[in-house]
């Protein structure tokens, strides 16, 4: 690291980027209102080519990366997905495809299986055709049901991910019934994380505390009924917690994301953070990006922290929470994540929750669907 004037905040060299997430494309046949992708994705210029993605895989694997997430956008929009999976498998990655299932037919799933794909996580928007199609602004429910059957046929564990929010959280029981019908082995009921499009639509998506409680109780009853056959994870929205999540295990500690144009980020959403420049794999090696770049070193260790985090005994546990959330709520990413009730800005989260509770269900939602037109409009703001 000689000659680098940006001294790492941490006193020891960080470990390898164990978790590599490739967001292969921002193209997506769905237009989900809760997507965490940046609202200005339409600005993205050329996606990396096959050779460039493969170079990233080789360099990251040589550093010690083991888990690979292939996401987007919809990764199936890339017709070189099979080639990317094949190379990743040969290199020794554990390969996870994170998909809406749109575009996954029998030919492709067979090719992916042959290429060595280890795992598929299939997302659903809701349990009914109408809601699924409304929330993703498309017609996909029947197709997803077919994909669920293909996943079983090709001997993958059936892993369903359903993003919860105010408009579907009351349907948890129907969602779990659907999962059971599909023979799901794992179901992740993941409450929306409010970044990107979800942040833009937050006032319409944030559930009330009572809704969250009811959904948790329903989930618990279902767990008791179904036993070990289906594992259900309920991820509580952090706005309802008193302590922040240990976001990314601290930026730059294990997690490396490469977005479609080759920009490397320490978390999916970090591009929004002001004052930081993030390097591009077109111009630098993965090793120099991970170990030497100011963008990755800035939030390592705890030298960047302000009070109350700096002197907090829990800072080694939660790393001050999420930098993006701190920035979105307070304008300064070095502040404590306002989810923490020790943060002087915690009232902002409480106000968001309180205002969600007061809204009536009849209110007509005004949602920004994640599509090119909206993205272009929001990019120019």
């Amino acid at each position, binding site marked *: 690291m000689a000659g680098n004037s940006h001294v790492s905040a941490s006193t020891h060299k960080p470990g390898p980027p164990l978790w590599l997430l490739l967001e292969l494309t921002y193209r997506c046949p769905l237009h989900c209102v809760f997507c965490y992708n940046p609202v200005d994705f339409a600005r993205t210029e050329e996606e990396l080519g096959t050779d460039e993605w493969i170079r990233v895989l080789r360099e990251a694997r040589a550093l*010690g990366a*083991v888990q690979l997430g292939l996401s987007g956008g919809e990764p199936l929009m890339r017709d070189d997905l099979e080639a990317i999976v094949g190379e990743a498998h040969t290199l*020794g990655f*554990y390969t996870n495809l994170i998909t809406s299932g749109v575009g996954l037919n029998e030919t492709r799933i067979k090719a992916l299986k042959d290429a060595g794909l*280890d*795992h598929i996580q299939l997302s659903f928007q809701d349990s009914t055709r109408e809601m699924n199609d409304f929330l993703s602004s498309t017609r996909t429910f029947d197709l997803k049901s077919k994909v669920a059957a293909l996943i079983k046929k090709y001997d993958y*564990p059936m892993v369903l991910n359903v993003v919860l929010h105010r408009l579907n959280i009351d349907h948890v029981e129907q969602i779990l019934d659907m999962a059971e019908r599909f023979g799901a082995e794992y179901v992740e009921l993941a409450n929306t994380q409010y970044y990107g499009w979800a942040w833009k639509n937050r006032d319409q998506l944030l559930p009330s505390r009572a809704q969250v409680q009811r959904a948790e109780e329903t989930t618990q009853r279902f767990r008791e009924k179904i036993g070990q056959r289906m594992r259900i994870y309920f991820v509580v929205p952090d706005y309802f917690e008193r302590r922040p999540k240990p976001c990314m295990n601290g930026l730059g500690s294990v997690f490396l994301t490469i977005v479609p144009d080759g920009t490397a980020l320490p978390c999916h959403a970090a591009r929004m953070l002001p004052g930081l420049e993030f390097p591009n794999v077109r111009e630098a090696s993965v090793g120099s990006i991970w170990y030497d770049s100011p963008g990755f070193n800035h939030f390592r260790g705890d030298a960047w922290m302000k009070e109350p985090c700096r002197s907090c005994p829990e800072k080694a546990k939660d790393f001050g929470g999420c930098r993006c959330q701190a920035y979105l709520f307070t304008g300064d990413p070095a502040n404590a994540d306002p989810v923490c009730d020790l943060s002087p800005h915690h009232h902002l989260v409480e106000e968001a929750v309180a205002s969600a509770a007061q809204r009536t269900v009849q209110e007509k939602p005004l949602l920004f669907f994640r599509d090119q037109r909206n993205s272009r409009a929001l990019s120019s703001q």
Partner: protein
Amino acid sequence: MNAIVATAKPMISRGFRLQWEPAQNSHVLLYPEGMVKLNGSAGEIMKRCDGARTLAEITADLEQSFGATGLSGDVHAFVSFALEKKWLEIRT
């Protein structure tokens, strides 16, 4: 805890993969979106769980490889733990 019989043939569970990682200087167990870093003895036991060898054979092999005796209790305890964690399975 010690319900597994010596003739059982444990193997790495479906969806899991065991591999040696030079960067971590250890065996790791990979599974959907997760990883367990194994210590030396856990790695040595796991890599012998190939679904072909019985627990008794695995124990004998370990004792021979490391010039030790009386490993049976430790091997049983770890295999029980790994079965509970679903890292290993016994196909019948």
